[in-house]
């Protein structure tokens, strides 16, 4: 085991380790963060939702964006899979369809990092019971 010999050593070590706990730190503040839900039912997975989720997580980590990425069940838009729902704090959730890994990268760059919408938005055509 390598010994820690100085404050600089410790800082370096901490930086290497910090990403392991990032997920938990984010969870501590979940209300004020962007929440991304990747639909991961059979239809979603078959059309590549797993890779899409991977891309979103990695891209967000690269840019150090405070985003909580979770998976969810089938949203019912099987024709438009993979689908991704993005909820920014204080805003209505937006659902994007036909998200390929390349499009996922674009989503992170344009909508998550900035505020620019992409095509493929699925209009809200349902009501949630918690809004009733």
């Amino acid at each position, binding site marked *: 085991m390598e010994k*820690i010999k100085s*404050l600089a050593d410790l800082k370096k070590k901490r930086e290497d*380790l910090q990403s*392991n*706990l990032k997920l938990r730190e984010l969870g501590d503040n*979940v209300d004020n963060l962007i929440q991304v839900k990747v639909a991961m039912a059979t239809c979603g997975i078959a059309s590549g939702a797993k890779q899409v989720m991977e891309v979103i997580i*990695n891209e967000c980590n690269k840019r150090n964006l405070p985003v*909580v990425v*979770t*998976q969810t069940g089938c949203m019912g838009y099987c024709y438009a899979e993979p689908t991704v729902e993005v909820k920014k704090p204080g805003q209505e959730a937006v659902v994007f369809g036909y998200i390929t890994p390349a499009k996922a990268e674009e989503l992170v760059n344009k909508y998550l990092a900035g505020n620019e919408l992409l095509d493929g938005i699925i209009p809200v055509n349902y009501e949630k019971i918690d809004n009733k």
Partner: protein
Amino acid sequence: MANYKYHILICGGTGCHASQSAQIKINFEQLIVEKNLVDDVQIVETGCFGFCEKGPIVKMLPDNTFYTQVKPEDCKEIIEEHIIKGRKVERLLYLDPKSQEHKADSKHMGFYKKQLRIALRNCGFINPENIDEYIARDGYKALATVLEQNDPQATIDIIKKSGLRGRGGGGFPTGLKWEICSKNNADQKYMICNADEGDPGAFMDRSILEGDPHTIIEAMAIGGFCIGATKGLIYIRAEYPLAIHRLRVALDQAREYGLLGKNLFGTDFDFEIELRYGAGAFVCGEETALIHSMEGLRGEPTFKPPFPAQEGYLKKPSNVNNVETFANIPVIINKGWEWFSSIGTEKSKGTKVFALAGQINNVGLIEVPMGITLREVIYEIGGGIKGGKKFKAVQTGGPSGGCLTEKFLDTPIDYDNLIAAGSMMGSGGMIVMDETSCMVSVAKFYLEFTVEESCGKCSPCRIGNKRLHEILERITQGKGTMEDLDSLRNLAQVIKDTALCGLGQTSPNPVLSTIDNFWDEYVAHVVDHKCPAGQCKALKKYIIDPEKCIGCTACARVCPTNAITGTVKMPHEINQELCIKCGSCYEKCKFNAISIK
């Protein structure tokens, strides 16, 4: 390296362990293998979340879902629903008793809303058996900073200015304690951690050691550097096996990283920590008795001065601090004394951890800023009194403290206010009592404890407490007199003035405080031979109402002493001489014919 998408945190405190959290962890581990999720889900056993009432706790991240009272058989549903399908398992969420709504996120629960976690910052967040997680949370940074600065007095000044006071009960300023010890020259000094938590119902120190052992190691090294000690000793009771295990693991890991041992952080400062086990004697929490016990002598206190800072362990200058006090040190160094001293009241800074117990809905471990009121603690964090009963008193400070009644509900909690109210902060036990508690019996309970735990060295404590206990016993038997009440007061005062150590000097406090606050209840026992709360067996009387009794004989058949007589279909009668007040007849009667007088 696996890129985890979910972390499942499982409470690994003693409380949740007792309700099968270890099995929950095993089940989760098997399930993620079965479902091929090993690279997606990380299973972590953490320290105490504090919400022991609803344990075992399982927390899902990053969405921060808080599952309560999870059973090993629930794991499958959590994995299949929450992880795979992304749906919360509603039935395991916390149900808010007021709104009857499920709360998914602990942030929205009354229990956590008013809390501020400094000493418990890592409890329920990191894996206590993994030093890497502690380092990722700024662990050992304070020690590195202090050593790099290489100015012990500057660090002592930071602690002094922060206003941190001893969390073990006395409330002595920590920085000042370090300064005194640092000025005494000797070839060897000792930094001692008092983990001999003895108050009945208190488990703050245990939970910190179980949930975040590295913070204690780091703080002891900082303290050692400040006072000039190269050796640290942790005195911990052998009844805390899990805390001892986690400390041992933590010590080994710290040594491996070179964070304990020779030349820490490349400086010439050496620091090593050893464990010493106590046998669970209450008096060993007193610093001189603790030191004698560590030396292999009888755990008896000695007169101060000399203070441990002058002549402590092996007659060398020593500094003794409580676990919770240490847990605050690294944060103060990292965040600055200004930040710390901005929390709390004028003379009591920072937070205090309390073990909330008794007749309260949310039993558990809480950390609140100094200056919060009892009302907030009991009704908002604690969720109110069990069964909707009426609040009567709260006991703080354990066997050395006293009872606070309704009139103190809005008093800000700090060291000085509690003393002014006739109690004390103590180590943080907080036992809530409702209207069915008999205050004479409460005083008797604590006296029983001190009589048992008195080391016997000085007569005021050895004999005086025994006499106090006898008088209280007489009163609860209905055999007390008004003179007894006077002698209670006088004797209590004498013991306070003459006992050798803190145990004896404070042992009459529960008696004095209940006499002051519940004088009428004492008088009722003595004059009317009645226990208003209906707790004192000897003063209870079960009576059959001949109007209501139909002579079903159910009570006579259940009575273990054959004290109930009567003919079938005729009203029965209880022979008070034979009655042992077991209450069986009272529970058996279907016609409400039996009443307690």
